[in-house]
């Protein structure tokens, strides 16, 4: 574990440092996508990289997401390690076939003879006042596909270490960046050595396990501070594979669990979390696993998104409903 920076940095800056350090460490690493070169990305995550590393390694592409991922696959077949950017969550959908039918499956199809160390970076989620198609939480589509690793950081230091680990990983990685945390600062040093498949306990507690990831991690921590009971907060970091061990150890201690995400509830990531926790911790649970999520509607327009996003009040209300009182009234007859 190496400290590479001590001053507080934003998540966008931490990601920029991760890309720069990966480009420095391995000449096979390339960074490309729409507006990532001269402009430095619409969120400035690739700021300065084209000048520093040259247009051969950091470059703008035509505006075609299937083309970006499809050509990245071909480059990886030929020994390079592309890191590509989908400009926004909903703009990754044109690349869905390339990601699910090829990026995820070629290693399996070739019985391990072909590795595709491609990282697809996707800024995702709401909370920044984006107009339609700029605020989707599309993680479940990709986490459902075998062969992909799906990662999302909740802090700037994790953003650095997880992106470095993703670029070094031999498996393809869908790297979801919570865009409303791009400007969040974190005094923790930027380090490498974080495993790519491990959840982390962000805040210890004894009464209830609050499971969050990406953009809802700060909301979960804020809720934990405001709660009347002792709340343990887990930041999943890796959505696929799922860290059963860390999550279940916590739930077996606390006996209660709430999972939080921005995506709609129906068949959302929280459904898998609830199922796995129930299957593995049934005898330890005092209440059903609760979900605090977006609603089962298309993502709202910016002036209404505050009604959609999980907030502290909704999380506290979910915690209050976890059958703390054994004398809870049963329905008549």
């Amino acid at each position: 574990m190496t400290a590479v920076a001590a001053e507080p940095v934003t998540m966008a800056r931490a990601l920029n440092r991760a890309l720069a350090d990966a480009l420095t460490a391995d000449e096979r690493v390339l960074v490309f996508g729409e507006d990532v070169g001269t402009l430095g990305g619409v969120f400035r995550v690739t700021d300065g990289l084209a000048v520093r590393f040259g247009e051969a390694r950091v470059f703008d592409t035509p505006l075609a997401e299937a083309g970006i991922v499809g050509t990245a696959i071909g480059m990886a077949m030929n020994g390079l390690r592309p890191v590509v950017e989908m400009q926004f969550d909903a703009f990754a959908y044109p690349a869905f076939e390339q990601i699910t039918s090829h990026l995820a499956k070629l290693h399996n199809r070739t019985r391990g003879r072909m590795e595709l160390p491609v990282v697809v970076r996707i800024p995702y989620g709401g909370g920044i006042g984006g107009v339609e198609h700029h605020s989707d939480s599309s993680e479940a589509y990709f986490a459902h596909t075998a062969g992909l690793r799906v990662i999302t950081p909740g802090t700037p230091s994790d953003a650095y270490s997880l992106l470095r680990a993703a670029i070094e990983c031999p498996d393809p990685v869908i790297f979801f960046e919570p865009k409303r945390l791009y400007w969040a600062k974190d005094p923790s040093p930027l380090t490498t050595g974080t495993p790519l498949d491990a959840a982390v306990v962000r805040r210890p507690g004894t009464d209830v396990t609050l499971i969050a990831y990406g953009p809802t991690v700060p909301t979960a921590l804020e809720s934990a501070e405001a709660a009347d009971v002792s709340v343990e907060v887990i930041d999943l970091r890796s959505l696929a594979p799922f860290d059963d061990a860390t999550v279940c150890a916590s739930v077996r201690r606390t006996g209660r669990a709430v999972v939080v995400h921005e995506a709609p509830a129906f068949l959302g990531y929280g459904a898998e979390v609830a199922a796995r926790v129930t299957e593995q911790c049934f005898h330890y649970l005092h209440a059903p696993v609760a979900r605090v999520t977006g609603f089962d509607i298309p993502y709202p327009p910016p002036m209404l998104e505050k009604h959609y996003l999980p907030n502290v009040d909704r999380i506290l209300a979910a915690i209050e409903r976890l059958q703390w009182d054994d004398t809870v009234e049963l329905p008549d007859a």
Partner: protein
Amino acid sequence: MSTVATPRQKLSRDLLPSAEPLQLITPSGEAVPGGHLPDDRVLLDIYRRMVIGRRFDAQATALTRQGRLAVYPSSHGQEACEVGAVAALRTQDWLFPTYRDCVALVARGVDPVETLSLLRGDWHLGYNPYSHRVAPQCTPLATNTLHAVGLARAAAIKGEDAAALVFVGDGASSEGDTHEALNFAGVWHAPVVFLVQNNGYAISVPLSKQSAAPSLAHKGVGYGVASMLIDGNDPAMVYTAVQSALEAAQAGEGPTLIEARTYRIEAHTNADDASRYRGEDEVLSWLARDPIDRLDRYLTARSVLDSETRTRIADEAEAFASSLRDRMNADPMLDPAVLFEHVYATPTPALRRQAAKVVGP
């Protein structure tokens, strides 16, 4: 109806394709006047590989009827493209085939049993792509065009002397990926050659319902990609066109799109009934343009091919088919553990638990 091919170095650099398909050998086996034909030695080798390829194709079809293959998409009639294009590839170049291109794989030297793994169903891919530089056969059509462009771009970035040849069909020319690939190839000046085998039908849908363009080769023009229209049943023309395009790619002159007009003699697969969408007369008219007969006539007239050589090649093809039949009649070794081994570079704990349910701890 066909236009004579100009010398190789002038073949490929025009954006606009010719109005009629370029040709070097007529269907009756005569050299088109003024054409620059490949060496007899090269053409005899192409002839040999086409004969073996057709015998392989017939054997695979028979194996399907016997239940040894789940399905087989024949390329009978398209051997000039399958073999002529592959013959132009160098060892260091890459081929990106589709599911209909088993004959091209065999021509490239891929083991025929490994070639048929996908269609037998013992695994999704039987061969090591790096052994012969043959990418996995593409089933979701046109997705391989982008892989070819990316691989070619990577070769250029790394300073490798290698190009990529990608096969698509007339149907796949409508897919978005084909257009993105042509565009990326044009912008990147990538060393890649697109060969569209226009066999007239996307399963049952005729070209008239696929495209309103003057030719599929015209689709290169809008992307700044040099384009050619050729007779896809003329092995000499396919070889010459692909070779000139590969040479241009290797010389840094960028990508080329080649439309080769050919015809699928058999149905789409054994599960298809072609009589529902095309008439027997049409098939017969294309049988008269058979690529193997054409080269046979040309090489015979030049005294390169005689009955002895013809018999020797036919015997070689028969031995190839016989060996394939014997090997395919042995049941493949199946191990369900492999289902879990290569999902990730290292199996996850959850996958190890799931594997134990199938194969035991």
